[in-house]
């Protein structure tokens, strides 16, 4: 689609649903899992059978509070569950348990800071329950699987009016939010499995005007890329409609991944009148400061704070820091190595290159491998002190990764220490020059580039153990000699 004619400003609100990584459901003890045979993880409570009594899952409540704290929210010291009443077949009770109101949700009025320093206001973080799944039957008609009904669901909604103004920020917000959720262990973050779902609402208005335009809401976005493309598409679609004198409808639109465009969804509008009221089956939640402070003090340092610390204290680049912060295990592994008086930059280099490569090939996480933080410290020291060169370093790492042997032991056992003595190197240089007389002639004829080939041959003779700088220097000296 074409870029718009007039100048517009976009406002993007983000509504994110995260299935909490609990073992059991929100109000009953049916297990939580992905997939499986339909209707095998259900009980009278999550099927909404008469006479059943829901009991909230403590872990789910604490996960939401921890998320709210990570998102700089205020915590509702008194909070209740409401019934949101509507009829839909995937909702067994005729209502969804949720949390209504401005200051009743477990967390409210917070913010998330993007990597560029911009703060995105968070309006609320609340706890509710997921619905079942409606499926089409092979020979027409529809059926429902209630395995997902009652799974704890956290809803995170950005401020109104929205702070996000383009598709790039929308994606960045989601990337960072997902990182925090996974970091805290409250959600597995799998967008493709639907455990993290994002529904942005988008509106545009002419530059210089105040009133927000008519918004559309986007559904069916199941990757970061589709969120970015979807928001961009909506901004351009709305601009094109306004440019051509059309009017926009407030509507829900679906995202079509294959042709990268949005379409109006034929949703039978459930009347926007949910008759919220406090759920009489669920009694209030009351918290005090010591309880909240207990949860706060048990929180891990968050990725953004770590990134800033790595750059400040260890002199790492933003990019390198980010690579170490892919997940908590990797970051903690790195910090353990640094704590053993390892060189942070050297350890970082090993982690993001050789270690990452080998882990990726083996399909392992750092702790599952034979490598410990102590291995990295030793190898980084061997490299920093020029005891071995980087080529040998790779070899040593591969061996340590395979057997778990310590780098110092491997170097000693295999006699891999770098050779810095002139004697053996000069000998090899002479031998290489003698057997490559023709190449030497070309060098002396002005083709100085061939020196690299000769250096390579000498290194080969030294089985990679010669000090590379010294080899270069001695080859050049020998070539210049006559």
């Amino acid at each position: 689609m074409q870029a718009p004619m007039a100048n517009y400003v976009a406002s993007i609100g983000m509504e994110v649903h995260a299935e909490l990584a609990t073992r059991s459901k929100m109000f009953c003890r049916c297990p939580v899992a992905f997939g499986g045979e339909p209707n095998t993880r259900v009980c009278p409570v999550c099927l909404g059978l008469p006479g059943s009594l829901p009991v909230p899952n403590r872990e789910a409540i604490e996960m939401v509070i921890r998320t709210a704290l990570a998102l700089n929210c205020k915590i509702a010291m008194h909070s209740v569950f409401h019934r949101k009443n509507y009829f839909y077949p995937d909702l067994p009770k005729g209502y969804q348990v949720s949390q209504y109101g401005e200051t009743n949700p477990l967390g409210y009025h917070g913010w998330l800071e993007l990597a560029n320093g911009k703060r995105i206001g968070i309006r609320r973080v609340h706890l509710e329950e997921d619905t079942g799944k409606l499926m089409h039957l092979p020979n027409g008609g529809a059926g429902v699987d209630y395995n997902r009904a009652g799974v704890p669901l956290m809803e995170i909604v950005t401020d109104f009016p929205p702070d996000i103004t383009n598709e790039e920020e929308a994606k960045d917000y989601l990337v960072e939010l997902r990182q925090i959720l996974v970091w805290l262990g409250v959600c597995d973050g799998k967008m493709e499995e639907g455990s993290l779902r994002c529904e942005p609402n988008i509106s545009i208005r002419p530059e210089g005007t105040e009133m927000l335009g008519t918004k559309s809401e986007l559904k069916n976005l199941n990757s970061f890329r589709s969120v970015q493309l979807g928001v961009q598409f909506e901004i351009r679609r709305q601009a094109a409609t306004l440019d051509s004198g059309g009017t926009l409808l407030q509507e829900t639109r679906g995202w079509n991944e294959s042709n990268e465009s949005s379409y109006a969804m034929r949703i039978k509008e459930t009347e926007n009148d949910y008759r919220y009221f406090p759920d009489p089956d669920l009694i209030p939640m009351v918290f005090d400061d010591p309880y909240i402070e207990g949860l706060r003090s048990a929180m891990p340092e968050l990725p953004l704070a770590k990134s800033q610390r790595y750059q400040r204290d260890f002199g790492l680049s933003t990019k390198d820091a980010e690579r170490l912060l892919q997940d908590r295990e990797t970051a903690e592994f790195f910090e353990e190595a640094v704590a053993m008086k390892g060189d942070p930059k050297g350890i970082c280099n090993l982690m993001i290159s050789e270690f990452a490569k080998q882990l990726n090939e083996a399909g392992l996480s750092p702790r599952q491998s034979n490598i410990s933080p102590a291995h990295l410290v030793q190898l980084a020291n061997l490299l920093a002190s020029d005891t071995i060169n980087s080529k040998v370093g790779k070899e040593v790492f591969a061996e340590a990764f395979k057997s778990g042997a310590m780098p110092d032991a491997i170097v000693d056992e295999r006699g891999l220490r770098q050779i810095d003595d002139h004697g053996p190197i000069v000998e090899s240089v002479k031998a290489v020059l003698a057997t490559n007389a023709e190449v030497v002639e070309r060098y002396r004829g002005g083709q100085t580039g061939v020196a690299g080939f000769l250096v390579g041959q000498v290194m080969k003779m030294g089985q990679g153990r010669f000090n590379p700088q010294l080899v270069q220097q001695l080859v050049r000296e020998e070539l210049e000699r006559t």
Partner: protein
Amino acid sequence: MSISLEEVRHVARLARLDLGEAEMMSLQSELNALIGHFEDIQHLDVSAIDPASHAVTMHNVWSEDLPGECLTRAEALQNAPVSKAGLFVVPTILEG
């Protein structure tokens, strides 16, 4: 305050109740009688009482996150009017 016939119709529609005109008229007067009781309560002086969100004074009754027993699928589906392929069969709904 009183309930109009229009409000009765609206709430009936939300609750998916198919009511005739006569039923709605009688519900309107019953609901108005009920609301009348609340009007009595509104005359009481409650300025010294904290608002209550619940009838009981307990709070924080929670369960630990330990998976327990479920129904078997046969049990779960036994009261379903129609079931097929392990699913509760429901009326078709428009979407997408």
